């Protein structure tokens, strides 16, 4: 079984992308410093906003800090290269991928998993430890909740990936996807609660967000971790993640199927 996994082409791609992430050492260390500094700044802003109060709107300071730290660190750890496919289409390198007996979408996904796994271990873990030392992060409600939160994080990761995949596939039509990618990142940054926890958003917006996939990307895992969700609510959030995942995967596949016909590779 282990041998099969070891020689599987997608697993190989994942391992390759993991080890390639370690190539640029300077960029890694600067990235680390960068996220530590931004966590410190954001936490200080919230400290000032709370002004020494124990809780605001019934939300305790430590819950807010926990949410902020987790969602910020997760969002820096889970970064996808929306330009990966676009770049390959632009340079024509997509041709050599099309010539291999494998799914480009899957190989792209395993590449992303590989590099994100590296960021999770090399980036998320150390910054989390440092944050835990300096700020009072709340512990998980229970071990079971920690595990469920981890599952929720994995689904959240898949959701983010499937959205990023749709953006990158549009590169068949618009060769430069930079603007679309930026728009997507801003929308997710706002509605997924990385900038402002969803708790503090107006009630009407909170209600509206219930029908979107945004509140189950970073926010649901943190709420599960803090023990703010009942078992039914957790089950519902999982269902919602899977539903949206299905929708996005379907859209991505349809777009891919239409787009691949449009490939133009000039020269050579």
């Amino acid at each position, binding site marked *: 079984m282990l041998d099969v996994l070891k020689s599987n*082409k997608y697993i190989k791609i994942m391992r390759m992308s993991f080890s*390639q992430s370690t190539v640029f050492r300077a960029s890694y260390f600067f990235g680390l410093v960068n996220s530590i500094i931004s966590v410190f700044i954001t936490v200080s802003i919230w400290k000032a906003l709370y002004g020494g109060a124990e809780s605001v709107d019934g939300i305790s300071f430590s819950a807010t800090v926990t949410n902020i730290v987790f969602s910020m660190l997760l969002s820096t750890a889970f970064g996808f290269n929306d330009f990966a496919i676009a770049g390959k289409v632009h340079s024509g390198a997509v*041709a050599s991928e099309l*010539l291999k*007996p494998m799914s480009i979408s899957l190989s792209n996904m395993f590449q992303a998993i590989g590099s994100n796994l590296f960021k999770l271990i090399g980036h998320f873990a150390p910054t989390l430890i440092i944050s835990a030392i300096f700020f009072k992060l709340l512990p998980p409600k229970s071990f079971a909740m920690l595990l469920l939160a981890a599952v929720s994080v994995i689904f959240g990761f898949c959701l983010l990936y499937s959205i990023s995949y749709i953006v990158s596939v549009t590169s068949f039509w618009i060769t430069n996807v930079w603007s679309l990618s930026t728009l997507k990142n801003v929308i997710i940054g706002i509605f997924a609660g990385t900038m402002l926890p969803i708790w503090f958003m107006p009630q009407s917006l909170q209600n509206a967000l219930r029908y979107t996939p945004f509140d189950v990307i970073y926010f649901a895992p943190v709420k599960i971790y803090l023990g703010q969700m009942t078992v039914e609510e957790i089950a519902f959030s999982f269902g919602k993640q899977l539903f949206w995942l299905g929708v996005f995967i379907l859209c991505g596949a349809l777009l891919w199927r239409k787009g691949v*016909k449009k*490939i133009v590779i000039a020269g050579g």
Partner: protein
Amino acid sequence: MIELENVVRSFKIVKRKSGFRGTLKNLFAPETEIKRAVNNLSFTIPDGQMVGFIGPNGAGKSTTVKMLSGVLYPDSGSLRVNGFVPHRDRKKYVRHIGVVFGQRSQLWQDLPITDSFEMLKSIYKIPDEIYRTNIELFNEILSLHTFENKQVRQLSLGQRMRADIAAAFLHNPDIIFLDEPTIGLDVVVKENVRAFIKSINEQRGCTVIFTTHDMQDIEKVCKRILIIDEGALLYDGTTEKLRDVFGEERVLTVSLNEKTDTLTACGIKSSVDAENPLDHIFRVPKQIKLPEMITEISAKAEIADLRIKEPEIEAIIRRIYEKGAADA
């Protein structure tokens, strides 16, 4: 078996205009032009054949190869290769083919070539034994071992091309597409590459389709050539037949012992070489027999030496490109 029938593929080209008004126009109402890269192309290639696919730049060679390898979709017409429709059955189909794009490496830029080969081994699920014997064989002809631990992006062009060619043959494909595999290579490496392709074709009976601008490649490797221009077939046949049909004249140069005025033999007048007045040059059309001519000349003057130049494939092809097959 490769079958193409009335295959058409066109590209949309946006005409960019310059100047302020042109730029505005580009943004809101771009003018486009449809260019037919491949225009009603039909041909058949049986198993095991080595075919040279030639044509001037922009003739549609690469587009055809890309459609045959499943990368591009045709607009209309039918393509069938060994029972597969390349673009539709891409994932299943590409397992049976090997492709080299001379201008674009298919190896992983940051990996040493041994790692790239290992990767291909998993992607194509190549059994250990076949993998080992192939690597040994390729090493022998292409001497890959001298640079096997270098990263692909650090390789020289010749090394990279050899690695790319080896990579395309690694999974024992039935059909090989080589799109300008000798581009930019030195004479020795070119010869190596040709020998490699030839020997693999003889050993395994795989079909080879070869696009090139190097006529030496064609003469040394391919038995059959297809010439296309503007997406349509101009010639399909053997290299010898090309000489017979299009090679209008041979050049006979006769060196005489004494200076004379122009000679006439079999109705052909000679021209005297300006630099060497002893040399008489005859342009002999293919219907005239050379021995008869030489007898006639030797009756008129004393011959010291003679040289015959067969029409060069390159010259013939140049003429076909310039005029089109009908007028050549």
